[in-house]
């Protein structure tokens, strides 16, 4: 098991390293010019002198390899440099924003599981009945509704019309309900269908038939045998949903004026703020690679066949 974890961790590190090269090159070779953007935003005429001065100031006059080495060396110590535009250290800002986004993502994940598990289970139990049809329509709507549009609808209904929830900003749990619901809508839909299928498959397993023959009660079969087995694949779904919800949070943050990492990244992209884009992209890679690593390890713990592959 130790060997398995070590091997997977090593893969993850290699992946991160390759991603860092890819991100660094992609930003610098995409044709944009941070110097021009900086001068434009600052209202400085882009004279040869100003361009040269700014290029030196931003450290963009060095060869690209030197720039990469300096960056990666500092990044390993969690020093992502200073933003070209806010002139603030990136790491504290990034982690503050990231904390907010993670709070929103985890809350959305909680909502996803709280709603999707009963939806999936009961639509399987009451297959082809009213509740099942309701969940099917709900799932269809869920996968087809863009989160930002749903977010705006929520604001109009719950904040403008009913004055029930705060439309913007950050604060208590009240501020999380609408954005979290908006981004989890799709995950709830997918997860409900996923659980339904798993549940129905588990119903057809032999051990269920044997349990029935043994005279085990219906409630016990559902709760102990089927439910547990049908929820196992959710570990995979967990990784998938985290990524989905995290991505959704980045989009929805602007609508709800939620100070998350997505807003930070969008403005950095707009201003060609290279150090922030790099830090954000690396952080995203790290989060996704870490989630995959955790999922792999969890699977290995649960299913011994995987660790001996």
């Amino acid at each position, binding site marked *: 098991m130790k060997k398995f974890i070590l091997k997977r961790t090593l893969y993850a590190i290699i992946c991160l390293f390759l991603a860092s090269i890819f991100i660094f090159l992609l930003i610098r070779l995409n044709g944009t010019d941070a110097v*021009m953007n900086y001068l434009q*935003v600052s209202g400085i005429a882009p004279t040869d002198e100003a361009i040269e001065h700014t290029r030196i100031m931003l450290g963009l006059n060095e060869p690209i390899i030197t720039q990469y080495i300096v960056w990666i060396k500092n990044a390993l110590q969690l020093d992502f440099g200073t933003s070209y535009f806010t002139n603030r250290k990136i790491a504290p800002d990034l982690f503050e924003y990231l904390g907010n986004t993670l709070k929103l993502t985890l809350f959305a994940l909680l909502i996803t599981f709280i709603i999707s598990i009963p939806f999936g289970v009961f639509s399987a139990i009451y297959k082809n009945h009213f509740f099942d049809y309701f969940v099917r329509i709900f799932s269809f709507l869920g996968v087809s509704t863009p989160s930002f549009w749903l977010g705006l609808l929520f604001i*109009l209904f719950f904040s*403008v019309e009913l004055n029930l929830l705060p439309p913007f900003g950050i604060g208590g749990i009240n501020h999380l309900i609408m954005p979290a619901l908006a981004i989890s809508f799709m995950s709830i839909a997918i997860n409900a269908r996923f659980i339904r299928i798993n549940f129905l498959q588990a119903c057809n397993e032999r051990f269920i038939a044997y349990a029935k023959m043994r005279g085990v009660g219906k409630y016990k079969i559902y709760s102990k045998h089927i439910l547990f087995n049908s929820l196992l694949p959710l570990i995979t779904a967990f990784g998938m949903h985290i990524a989905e919800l995290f991505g959704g949070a980045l989009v929805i943050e602007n609508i709800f004026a939620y100070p998350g990492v997505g807003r930070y990244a969008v403005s950095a992209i707009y201003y060609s703020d290279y150090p922030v884009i790099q830090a954000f992209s690396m952080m995203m890679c790290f989060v996704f690679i870490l989630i995959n690593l955790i999922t792999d390890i969890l699977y290995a713990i649960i299913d011994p066949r995987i660790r001996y592959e």
Partner: protein
Amino acid sequence: MKKLFFVFILLISFLNSSELKVATSKNVGELNPHLYSPNEMFAQNMVYEGFVSYSQDNQIIPSLATSWEISEDGLVYTFYLRKGVKFSNGEDFNANAVKLNFDAIFANKQRHISFALVRAFDYLEVVNDYEVKLHLKHIYEPTLRELSLIRPFRFIAPSAMIDNNTKDGIKAPIGTGKWKFVDTKLGVYDKFVKNENYWGEKAKIDSIVCKIIPDPSSKVIALKTKEIDYIYTDGEISLEDFINLQKSDYQTLISKPLSTILIAQNTAKYPTNDINVRKAINMAINKDEISKYVFYGTRPKADFFYDDNVPNGKIDRSAYEYNPKKAKQLLLDNGWEFKNGFLEKDGKRLDIVISYIGINAEQKAISEVLQANLKEIGINLILQANESTIFYKRHRNGEFELIFNATWGAPYEPEIFMASMVAPAHADYMAQIGLKQKPLIDENIEKLSKTMNKDEKSKLAKEILTILHDEAVYIPIVYHTNICVASPKLKGVKTSILKYEIPFDDIEIKE
């Protein structure tokens, strides 16, 4: 008992305090008066003051200098400082503070080099505690106007500088202005309170909270849910939302024209090097339609380079009237022929490329109208969307046929803006370079900033503008305006002629 009384007073003052909630798109920055982005100009203007200000009727008025004298040779400006002024931390404002601020600004001279005053500046002499002399290397007439700009010539308390410098940051944003910057939360809000020690008329409200709501639609919703009371400046909300709000109880204001949105035609590049092509384009564009449909009537059409309100901006010429027939005829009379619906000359079709910033919806919409208008007279306009830095590289390198451009607005007009026309880094220089009168234009611009004679100045500016108009170098599209939406509970809401100033000072909250 004393404690109880104190709590009671606090409670009363809390209940009476008035707070204005404003929507903004980002934090205002650390508010360093001598630096640029990400310091938001409207906020720098709230906290800091300079020697002079620019009034709503285009005049230089006293601020921290009560009066000034200009030597006969135009090289020495003597400023008499206002006595009894204190920075918001209680520190005295005096000649020493001015000197330290100028030293800090010029310790970072390279950063401000695009300002002609920085290039003309020689040294600052402290005569006594309340008198300073600004010495120039050569005459620079717009000196007072550059000193009225929001940055970099404004004053921070010396104790707020780091080792007498501001280039690497400041300890705290301490100015003499009407407002004090007291609190900020990253990505959430910035808060200002009234400076109770302000030397002049104090602000009417007690505090301003700038809530950060980046999305334009969300700003409108925030207004409706009373999360905010006030939205100012162009681009904060869509014009469509602005028009809808006009039909409601909200106060909606449109400022006077602030600057001009124009399209520069490259006189050095085929086919816009042909004056007839440039004139025909000017006559073929239906600006009324652009003003009405693209800007919902919030921006008036522009017939000239400058709006009439710009000092020395009015010229003795008539506008290029919208007349597609005449435009087409002008081209036909000058050797162009129709083939397959488009004009051709020497076997070459009249294709023209217009460059715009891809994510700028206004530029895109204007370009589309232009494309339709020019098709009517046989010109094939090709729309070229650019990433913004690539767009500005085109400005700088002259790699364009038609490109979007804009004037800068008060107090830059006309001399400070025109000075940029002689610098190769600007689209204006590149657009004009094909004109045989370019040396004359540049010469006039040089003279313009060096003459103290008002009549001569007016003559020079008009001469430049007349050449540019006669040569049809630019296509003025609309005059840029700012918009403002305020809750019905606000009093004293107004707009400013200065693009980056938000006029908070007279705002009151009705009981």
